């Protein structure tokens, strides 16, 4: 085992982490876009307001993880990405349009990125919902892409079923976050929606499990390498159901997120050693050693710096006040209370 092998392992771990984090954060963000679209039709102003408030104030935060994963993959296996990218034309294009649409939502919502939530009761512009449609469909594209990588082709039932599961998971995480953020006992309708969406997730997951043996790799090749992860995912489903039953919505939300992260981790683990199942091994066309070592060092250092700053921003934005000491820093320099 050389240091480069260890660096490759570290980068792979970062890619899995970044994909799982994006599936959770980005999936919830897209899911909220989907619920915004549906509530626009029902005319529920309160729910619309809750959805607008539940989103991230920074567009880049939920989706930065995807960029990190793609950048690391390009650096780690450029030839593999070049070979695999060809079959992902349509799902990636759909995902890209969804990402752009989510930014349009932020801008047209009147809030813009980095701005405070709108005043209570302010009307959500119609444009926000119009842009929400492609954003809501983005998880389907992402799931289809993952399914295509698992089966070696974008055609067939498995990619479609994976897309459906991703869409259901995004909607489920979003509705659980809405329940969590509701504060007062949430409406019965919202609770029922959570149960129904959870049922759809389980149905989509079951459908995928049925379809995989016919259109994709043998089921055992998924279950065996990712066995522990799948067991953990099963546990997350159980915790989620229990938390919903006893109305512990915070726990339900975290369990839903854990379920998504674990499913993505399982899918990636099952994918190994292929980037594109049966066609493009991950080891083929690896980047030069210098690049690998650089990425393995730069990724954790950069991520630590970003996460530290993001945590400070979150603390400042949520508490909405400065601490009594002058230890608070904005940028490089200490701030003092005005």
């Amino acid at each position: 085992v050389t240091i480069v092998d260890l660096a490759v392992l570290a980068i792979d771990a970062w890619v899995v982490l970044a994909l799982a984090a994006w599936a959770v954060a980005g999936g919830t963000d897209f899911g909220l876009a989907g619920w915004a679209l549906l509530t626009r039709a029902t005319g529920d102003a309160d729910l619309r307001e809750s959805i607008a408030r539940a989103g991230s104030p920074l567009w880049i935060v939920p989706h930065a993880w995807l960029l990190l994963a793609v950048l690391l993959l390009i650096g780690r296996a450029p030839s593999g990405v070049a070979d695999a990218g060809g079959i992902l034309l349509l799902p990636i294009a759909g995902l890209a349009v969804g990402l752009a649409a989510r930014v349009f939502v932020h801008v047209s919502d009147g809030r813009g990125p980095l701005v405070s939530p709108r005043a209570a009761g302010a009307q959500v512009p119609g444009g926000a919902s119009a842009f929400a449609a492609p954003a809501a469909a983005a998880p389907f594209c992402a799931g289809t892409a993952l399914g295509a990588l698992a089966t070696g082709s974008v055609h067939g039932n498995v990619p479609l079923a994976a897309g459906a599961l991703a869409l259901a998971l995004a909607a489920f995480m979003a509705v659980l976050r809405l329940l969590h953020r509701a504060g007062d006992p949430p409406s019965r309708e919202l609770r029922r929606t959570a149960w129904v969406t959870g049922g759809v997730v389980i149905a989509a997951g079951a459908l995928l499990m049925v379809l995989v043996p016919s259109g994709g790799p043998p089921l055992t090749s998924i279950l065996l390498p990712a066995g522990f992860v799948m067991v953990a995912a099963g546990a997350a489903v159980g915790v989620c159901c229990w938390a919903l039953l006893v109305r512990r919505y915070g726990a339900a939300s975290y369990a839903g997120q854990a379920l998504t992260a674990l499913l993505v981790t399982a899918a990636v683990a099952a994918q190994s050693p292929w980037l594109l199942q049966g066609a493009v091994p991950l080891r083929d066309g690896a980047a030069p050693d210098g690049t690998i070592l650089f990425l393995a060092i730069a990724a954790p250092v950069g991520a630590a710096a970003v996460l530290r700053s993001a945590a400070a921003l979150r603390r400042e934005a949520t508490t909405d006040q400065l601490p009594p000491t002058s230890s608070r820093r904005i940028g490089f320099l200490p701030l003092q209370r005005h």
Partner: protein
Amino acid sequence: MDVPSVVSLLSVTALTAHLVLCALSLALPILSLAAEWRWVRTERVQYRTLARRWARATAVTFSLTAASGALLLLQLAVFWPGGVQLAGGVLAPVLLLAFFTGTMATIALARHNHGWDRVKPREHLPGGVPVVLWAVATGGLLLVAHAWLQRPVGFTAADGVLLDALPLAVARSPLAAAHVAHVILACCTAVGFLVASIYAAGALRGRRDAYHHAGMAVALAVGMTAALLQPLAGLPALRNMAAYQPMKFAATQAHFETSAAAPLVFGGVPDLAARRLRGGIPVPRALSFLVAGDRSAVVMGLDETATSAWPNVLAIRTAFQLLLLFGTMLPIIGMAYWLRQWRGRDPGPLLLAAIMAGGVFAVGDFLAGATVSIAGQYPWFVRHVLRLADAATQDPAAPAVLAVLAVVHVALLGCLLPLLTRSAASAPEGAGTSVVFR
């Protein structure tokens, strides 16, 4: 037109929209910081209003630029398999750094905006410095990658596959330093004059208040400073182009035959069939002097390569002439404004109209520069290593999908411009509005 050609053309559209967003992301934080500095110095409320509005515009611009960058990255992975295969392993480290610095810039801006009205002005002002530094670092890193594509070094490849590369090989490109300085200054010039033109337009409509005056003054100060510094970076960039991209340089000058004591010709129309430049005003030996500091130096002409290998001479020559024309007009307009200010007189309608036209010149100048750069790179993805035709996908579905994405890129840019003009035109902020992040 074959698939790779269409993919190249559509990618250029997307890239151009992204470049404009990048220029705004790079220069707006500087404008905001300059306005805030003026506020701290003078305590005049119009500067505070400007600083906050520009900071808000920067926030939106950052988001749109990040989205546009994300789209370009996904496009690179899907539509440019040959490019990823060869250049992915070299460019990924610098793109990763740019990703982190860009994210840091966004977070620094959010924290800076959060500090408005929460801390003393003198304590708040330095918080804008990291925003500028991170934004400039991001732009600089991306420009270093761009310079490497024009003059690739530090790697070995065979059959379009990368075999070995030095860590951060992109930073070793001899074009990098001058290219970064030149383009960053160009961004500041273009955005400074563009923003000034928005306020000049408001003043021309009768809103001759302190707010509009301050908007013009700060934006022109930034734009003028960058324009005056530009020759310091422009000359090395030009010499680099002559040394490392001689055909592109020859195309900018429509210099068809290799010759010593070459003249610099302003204007004129290149006649490709006759291989000569018709008309124009020649300055004897000036081109040789510019390129090598020697009035008798030999300047390589287009005749050094086959006609089929020429870049688009007409487009590059025209764009370069426009670049010079607009690049000269902008400082003249700025000087006229500052001369008037120095005499203690407000700008008259004619000068306001000129400043407004300066916005068009600034955009034209920036786009002309982008045209020289992009057309000069043709037909290479990585110069002399990988052709665009070999780098792009051959998938027949690609043009239609990419057309949609190109429209999205343009739409991202399109939704920003009304926001900027609306922000400038609206009345200065009143009491009672939320100050959180605003």
